[in-house]
Structures are given as structure tokens and as C-alpha cells.
């Protein structure tokens, strides 16, 4: 299956590179906030002598190691997301009503960002160290994963609603249907899933806000990067062979305008 493999490799590469770019963003914008939150966490722990001994005993990786590990984490996570996006692209390409591969890639990346990042963020925003009760980590992780799935379902519902309206209807009506389908699922998901209010009363609100923006920004950079790079890579076919499926003489060249390859 040369086509799937070639698309998958492009997705993995796009994801890896986008992950490293997102890691750089997170390093510059997010790390200062993590350091500040850890300082608060340490302060809280150090007031209890026994906990302090505990805490230092289980420190496997120092702060410098964790800062480097940030790039490992975003790079691997990005590659995995790029691979998943490429797989989704291969399976859904024919259903996307555009003849432009690059546009299809960007559309899917945007859908993933909305469904798997923005929707979960609305109910379970990222938390810095020192926020969150370790006892509820399993419930929080389960609810979070469920909301990622439901977010993708919400985007799908929006797409279905958009298509259920006659193509002859005004584009405003179709847009309203799409937003309505999306919001319906999102609101139900938000209502049904449990809430967790675990921010300590004395945790600085500004720091929490800045951390959450940095976290959301990291994901936005990641998915924007994956979408753009994947679109560019799809437009760049091997020079001597064309991994197109149903064979044919003509090719459409690079995707028009919007995603011209950066550099070179």
C-alpha cells in the first residue's frame, strides 16, 4: 500500500517537526510559569518536614532533565498526532468535498484542533504543577479522554448538520446548522461529564491564567504546524515517482496560494 505509507510518513514527519516547534514555544512561554508553579509547590511541601524528605527521595529527573524532556514529549506526541492525522486523511479524503489536497489536510487539522483540544480545554483546562488532587487523577484522566472523543464527535455532528441542509440553502443557514450541531454535542458533553474544582484557594490567579494560555498556545502551534507542514508535504511528491492511486497523466501541482512551501 504505497499510498498509505507515503502519506503516513509525511504525517509523521510533519508531526515531529511541528512538535519540536511547539516544544520551543512551550519552552519559551510555558517553562517560566512551570518554574513559578513548582516554586509554590515546593513552598507548600517544605512547610511539612516529612513530606520534604519524601519528595526529594523520589526525584528521578532533575529540572534540567525535565526541560529537555519537554522537547522529547512534544516531539513524540506531535509525531503520533501527525500519524493519526495522516491516517484520518487517508480514510476520509474522498469524503471531503475539495479537490485540493492541501485544503483537505488543513481542514482535518483544524477539525482535530477544535475537537480534540479546544473542546476539552473548555471544561478541563491544563493545570500547572501544584494544582490538582492526586487522588482524582484517574477520574480526571478518564473524563478528559472521554471529552477528547466527544469533542471529535461534536465536530463530526457539525459537519453532518452542515451537509444535511440543502446545498441550495444560503451559506449562512448551513453555517448555523454546523455550529448548532457542534454546540449541541458539546453542551451535552459538558453537562454530563463531572467537574473538578481543585485549584487551591491561594494559587495566584494570574499565574494560572498565564499557564493555561501557554498550554493552549502550545497545542495551537502544534496543530497549526502539523496542518501546514502536512499540506506542504502532500503537495511535494517524489520527483521521479508519483504515489497516486488511480494513475493518470495530469497532476495538480502545488496546492494553490495559501500554503506555499516555506523556505527554499
Amino acid at each position, binding site marked *: *500500500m504505497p*499510498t*498509505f505509507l507515503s*502519506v*503516513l510518513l509525511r504525517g509523521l514527519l510533519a508531526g515531529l517537526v511541528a512538535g519540536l516547534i511547539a*516544544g520551543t514555544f*512551550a519552552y519559551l512561554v*510555558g517553562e517560566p510559569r*512551570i518554574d513559578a508553579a513548582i516554586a509554590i509547590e515546593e513552598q507548600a511541601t517544605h512547610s511539612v518536614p516529612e513530606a520534604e524528605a519524601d519528595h526529594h527521595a523520589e*526525584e*528521578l*529527573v532533575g529540572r534540567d*532533565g*525535565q*526541560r529537555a*524532556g*519537554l*522537547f*522529547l*514529549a*512534544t516531539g*513524540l*506526541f506531535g*509525531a*503520533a498526532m501527525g*500519524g*493519526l492525522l495522516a*491516517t484520518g486523511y*487517508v*480514510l476520509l*479524503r*474522498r469524503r471531503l468535498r475539495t*479537490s*485540493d*489536497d492541501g485544503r*483537505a489536510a488543513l481542514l482535518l487539522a483544524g477539525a482535530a484542533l477544535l475537537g480534540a483540544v479546544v473542546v*476539552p*480545554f473548555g471544561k*478541563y483546562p*491544563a*493545570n500547572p*504543577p501544584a494544582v*490538582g488532587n492526586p487522588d482524582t*487523577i484517574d477520574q*480526571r484522566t478518564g473524563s*478528559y479522554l472521554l471529552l477528547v472523543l466527544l469533542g471529535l464527535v461534536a465536530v463530526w455532528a457539525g459537519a453532518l448538520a452542515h451537509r444535511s441542509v440543502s446545498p441550495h440553502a444560503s451559506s449562512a443557514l448551513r453555517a448555523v446548522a454546523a455550529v448548532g450541531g457542534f454546540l449541541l454535542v458539546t453542551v451535552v458533553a459538558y453537562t454530563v461529564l463531572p467537574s473538578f474544582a481543585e485549584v487551591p484557594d491561594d494559587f495566584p490567579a494570574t499565574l494560572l491564567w498565564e499557564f493555561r494560555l*501557554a498550554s*493552549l498556545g*502550545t*497545542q495551537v502551534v*502544534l496543530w497549526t504546524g502539523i496542518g501546514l507542514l502536512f499540506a506542504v508535504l502532500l503537495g511535494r*511528491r517524489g520527483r521521479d515517482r*508519483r*504515489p*497516486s*492511486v*488511480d494513475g493518470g497523466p*495530469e497532476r*495538480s*501541482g502545488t496546492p494553490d496560494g495559501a500554503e506555499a512551501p516555506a523556505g527554499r
Partner: protein
Amino acid sequence: MSNPVPARPLAQPVVTARLLWTALAVVAVLALLTYLVAFDQGAVSRSGMYLHELMHDGRHLLGVPCH
């Protein structure tokens, strides 16, 4: 753009059963990778908490529940 003859998309694979199974296998591998980065606490990676701690900052900034 208004193109009278729509450009033929470069990659529009026909979704066959074989493609679906391959895709399923790929998704499983990538889900495992995602799990290792975002959720594992040594149970699968057999590294104790080492990988978990190493990727601590990444997990926080990617917005995954951490601790």
C-alpha cells in the same frame, strides 16, 4: 479559484478492507506512543517513573491531566 476542469487530487485512496486493517494497526501503534508520552506511569514502559518524570513538563503544557 474557478477551474473548469477540477484538478485531480493527488492522493485519494480507495478505502478497502485491507487499508482499514492497516489503518487500525497504525492507529494502535500511535495510540501506544501517545499513551507512553501522555499517560504512562511506568506500567507499560517498564522504566519505573523515569519516562513519566522526564516528560513531566511536556505533559503539563500539552494540557494532559498530570497529577
